[in-house]
């Protein structure tokens, strides 16, 4: 019963926040904080007490650390089917952690309609947890689409319009919504296609993951259906031709929105690839892998170049996400256990470092009231601590050893090298550009001549705790990633087996 509660807690907490607004603006914040802390605590408790050597693997019915099943819509064999394994647990922990942080970082930023804001925030997080737990394809899609609505409100109502007035927050929110909704519908078509293919061979209509894994289909069908899933995930990840919503959404969103978007929402796409696209369509994915990895490469370089060219600090971080997600995409499609594990660590580390950078730029914005780096310069001497901490996270973002990002990138590159040395080699050179844009961000924003001599007020305890906590965590992952690797090992091993078999079949066919 603990799994449905993981989803319900944020939803209920959100409603309480909304109702709590009538008793003052502070109450919703505390309710939201408590809700997310409870979520995180539950996740940690599950981590401490669960056995994560269970995970789906080919050849047998999937086994799970925890499972919950209840009939929902009989007509189509749809169940409320939730299950937990190592990968979903790690993602839920990340969601809980960033949930707490996004509440904390809006403590002063959001002053209008606090209750409704937290309602939206909580519902996004609830939807995300739903995505990470759902094992019924209908239910997965349900949450996948559902979380768009509160995210839309978050950007459209509490966002910032760009300073030149060209891109409004509503423009950004609508673009985000349309991109993800349209691609989501393509995925729905693919889901239904898969279900009907399965129905034609077995005579049972079901959306259950375990049953659909056994679907027999021709390679062409498999390829088309796989593309349907891939498009939806590619938009959300984002993969380069589909990325244009991301910088707009990030730049216009409030800090909490950016934290959730970069930290968690992008991860749902990677999770979807690992959980659904690869296991359901291993052969087609193996055939598609070179294309996907090429797209990943393009993403790494394109993201890095564009990040370098930005003047808006949040857009810069947004484009750096495109670059980092390129590594994740390569890791996922490499088919080696090492690289897959690297992708998981990279997801966690990027979630933490990008969230921290967004929080820091939010704090910078609260002090300078601009995100334009041309108007910053010389901030190092004017604010205590903040520039130095930013430097740390910028260094993490470029993959400095000792931080989690390094582990992730290293494992991905290492794992990829065995099969596809060229891709690995080219991707490695992308790291150079990573350092270029990370350092230029620090250089433009914090060094150089100061625009003014007035000393801005330093960081208060709340702000310090948030970012220092993230820094400690990032170093912990960087120094001792073993607990995280152990947790996801079984899941990744399953994915690798599916994929590896398909790869070897493909190789022998050629």
């Amino acid at each position: 019963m603990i799994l449905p509660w993981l989803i319900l807690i944020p939803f209920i907490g959100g409603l309480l926040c909304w109702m709590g607004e009538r008793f003052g603006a502070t109450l919703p914040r505390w309710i939201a904080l408590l809700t997310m802390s409870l979520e995180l605590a539950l996740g940690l408790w599950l981590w401490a007490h669960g056995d994560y050597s269970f995970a789906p693997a080919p050849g047998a019915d999937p086994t799970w650390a925890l499972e919950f099943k209840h009939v929902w819509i009989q007509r189509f064999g749809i169940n409320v089917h939730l299950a937990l394994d190592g990968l979903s647990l790690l993602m839920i922990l990340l969601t809980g952690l960033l949930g707490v942080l996004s509440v904390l970082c809006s403590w002063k930023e959001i002053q209008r309609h606090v209750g409704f804001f937290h309602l939206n925030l909580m519902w996004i997080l609830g939807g995300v947890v739903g995505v990470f737990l759902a094992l019924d394809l209908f239910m997965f899609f349900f949450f996948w689409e559902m979380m768009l609505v509160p995210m839309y409100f978050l950007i459209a109502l509490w966002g910032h319009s760009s300073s030149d007035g060209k891109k409004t927050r509503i423009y950004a929110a609508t673009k985000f919504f349309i991109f993800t909704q349209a691609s989501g519908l393509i995925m729905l078509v693919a889901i239904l296609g898969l279900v009907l293919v399965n129905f034609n061979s077995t005579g049972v209509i079901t959306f259950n993951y375990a049953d659909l894994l056994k679907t027999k289909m021709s390679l062409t069908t498999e390829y088309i259906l796989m593309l349907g899933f891939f498009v939806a995930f590619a938009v959300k990840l984002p993969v380069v031709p589909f990325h244009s919503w991301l910088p707009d959404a990030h730049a216009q969103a409030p800090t909490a929105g950016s934290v959730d978007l970069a930290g968690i929402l992008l991860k749902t796409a990677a999770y979807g690839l690992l959980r659904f696209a690869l296991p359901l369509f291993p052969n087609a994915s193996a055939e598609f892998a070179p294309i996907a990895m090429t797209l990943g490469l393009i993403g790494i370089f394109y993201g890095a170049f564009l990040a370098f060219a930005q003047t808006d600090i949040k857009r810069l971080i947004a484009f750096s996400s495109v670059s980092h997600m390129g590594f994740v995409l390569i890791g996922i499609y490499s088919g080696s256990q090492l690289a897959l594990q690297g992708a998981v660590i990279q997801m966690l580390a990027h979630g933490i470092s990008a969230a921290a950078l967004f929080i820091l730029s939010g704090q910078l914005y609260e002090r300078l009231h601009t995100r334009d780096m041309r108007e910053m310069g010389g901030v190092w001497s004017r604010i205590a601590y903040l520039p130095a901490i930013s430097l740390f996270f910028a260094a993490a973002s470029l993959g400095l050893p000792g931080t989690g990002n390094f582990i992730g990138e290293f494992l991905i590159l290492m794992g990829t090298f065995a099969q596809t040395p060229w891709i690995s080699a080219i991707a490695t050179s992308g790291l150079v550009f990573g350092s270029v844009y990370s350092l230029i961000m620090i250089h433009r924003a914090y060094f150089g001549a100061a625009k003014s001599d007035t000393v801005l007020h330093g960081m208060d305890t709340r702000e310090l705790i948030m970012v220092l906590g993230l820094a400690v965590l990032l170093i912990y992952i960087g120094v001792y990633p073993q607990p995280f690797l152990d947790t996801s090992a079984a899941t990744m091993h399953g994915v690798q087996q599916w994929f590896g078999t398909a790869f070897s079949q493909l190789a022998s066919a050629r």
Partner: protein
Amino acid sequence: MEFTIQHFIALAPLLITSLTIVVVMLAIAWRRNHAQTFLLSCAGLNLALLSIIPALKVAPLAVTPLMMIDDFALLYIALILVATLACVTLAHAYLGEGGTGYPGNREELYLLILLAAAGGIVLVSAQHLAGLFIGLELLSIPTYGLVAYAFFNKRSLEAGIKYMVLSAAGSAFLLFGMALLYAEAGSLSFSGIGHALAATSMPAPIAQLGLAMMLIGLAFKLSLVPFHLWTPDVYEGAPAPVAAFLATATKVAVFAVMVRLFQISPAANTGVLSNVLSVIAVASILFGNLLALTQNNLKRLLGYSSIAHFGYLLIALVASKGLALEAIGVYLVTYVITSLGAFGVITLMSSPYKGRDADALYEYRGLFWRRPYLTAVLTVMMLSLAGIPLTAGFIGKFYIIATGVEAHQWWLVASLVLGSAIGVFYYLRVMVTLFLIEPNLRRVDAELHWEQKAGGVMLLAIALLAFFLGVYPQPLLTLVQHAVLGV
């Protein structure tokens, strides 16, 4: 044929509705009283709704060669009665009480709406071209009066006349088509036509032409592209509760009879005609959504969006096998709920009647911070129209996509995906307008205690229903699954 008690039971919903019309008419002649007329109409409609339960026991039963009362017909009768009931409660709020509100005679509106409902009941149970025509005219003619009911308002009168002329043209097409079809098939009953057309491998050109002309006539009523030109004007001009009736009861009835015709004589859906239907579907989806993009008037926007929604429905009609019948049922139910909700909010915002309806988008700016629950209703409706999970509209869209994928209608499915993506844009625009804060604006508001009146209660119930069906649609699916056509 001989009438037995069985036939009367089967026909009870229609008989009770007709009886209500007579009673209401006499009551108006005896004493003009708004509340009394309203209560009588409501009571009659509720009784008619209840009489469906015994009618279910005797269905399917052919009552005269013209009508067939089966589960399919009863489902749509129920839907029409519920929609009418909702429109009546909205009309009551809209017309206002005492000295305020609508200045003319209020009572006749109920009479007209009941007449139109009776027409709808005949239409959905028609199994004969004559029945179809009687039902359609009985539905349309009172509607002219309804659209032009606020006749001192220029727009309303204009809309009424426009609707009358175009509707008459549509009926002419329909009649001509029936004549041609009769010339070829030699029968007016749906099944007779079906047999005659199935006898030859390919329907004769005359029969095809006849069917095509009938299609034009029906497409006029359903406002499918390219016969949609009247829709936005009429929706805009008609008083809000009447627009709600037009968008729901009228369209449901016409679509249901079209489904029956195409199911009983499948030859109508072969060869060229099937292609024509597909083209109309794609055109309706794309044009409806594209034209809605730039609208600043909520009623016009809903008009265009209804064009698109009936385009989606045509996908199921083209597929016509497998899930299709169920999909149509589910989609129509969810669409009716959603439209009633959306028009209901407009109605309550414009209640009591003050000369013009509050339908400009800017009048809804920041409504959330003044009337949060009313806004929540409209938000749910917009999400439902866009087909976002947690609302009834999602279940409908899910069904239509499933039907399209099942029938391998890839082009239609692709246009649905494209259409939805476009559609999201304007639904979101409406939605975000509700939440934007704009100081110093002339405020048009619903009455303070709108939720304590019949219209408000109905609206809240509908919003809850839309949410409930989005989360747990199984009861609806079971209901629709049983609504099969009788032979």
